[in-house]
């Protein structure tokens, strides 16, 4: 069974600071996804990473993929309150496997 682990599970950070969320997975996968979930809302797609070394950026968020290490990172630059949400990574291998999520709170 493919396992996906995220860390940290909870993250409280001050506005303006940088931080990285890590996503490790246990077997090879052809695709890696990042989703965002706001409280009481459903999941929205942030990034899709399709190959080793892939890097995608949107605003203050940047995602990267290292398929050899089976690791993806979501880097947050100069955090703002609007980034407070839960972030999930997911890998695809015949079906989608989700991590447990990282709950991010950005404090003014």
């Amino acid at each position, binding site marked *: 069974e493919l396992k996906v682990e995220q860390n940290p599970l909870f993250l409280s950070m001050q506005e303006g600071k940088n931080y990285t969320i890590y996503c490790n997975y246990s077997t090879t996968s052809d695709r890696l*996804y990042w989703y965002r979930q706001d409280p009481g*809302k459903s999941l929205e797609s942030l990034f899709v990473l399709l190959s080793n070394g892939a890097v995608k950026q949107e605003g203050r968020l940047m995602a990267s993929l290292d398929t050899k290490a089976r690791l993806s990172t979501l880097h947050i630059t100069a955090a703002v309150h609007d980034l407070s949400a839960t972030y999930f990574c997911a890998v695809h291998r015949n079906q989608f496997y989700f991590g447990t999520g990282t709950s991010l709170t950005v404090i003014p």
Partner: protein
Amino acid sequence: DVKVTQSSRYLVKRTGEKVFLECVQDMDHENMFWYRQDPGLGLRLIYFSYDVKMKEKGDIPEGYSVSREKKERFSLILESASTNQTSMYLCASSLSGSGANVLTFGAGSRLTVL
């Protein structure tokens, strides 16, 4: 934009009741999925379907069944609801093929079983 609509945002049912959760997508996606989301456990796949009248078990199918009579509609059925099925249920859809195949989620259905 793809829209995935779940019929009920909040439901309260009693133990032993039959529960239907409906999901409709409007962009001709082949694949449809039902997940449940619980704190600390992430999303767990209950059932999925790659085509009309086709279904596959996910990781936690026990106590659930599904129906896909039309391409756009995927229903989740709890034959006899139990308290441990209290959860948030998320429906999602995606295209088939070799592309990115991003999942598009519905707003979710929060079920409470008393």
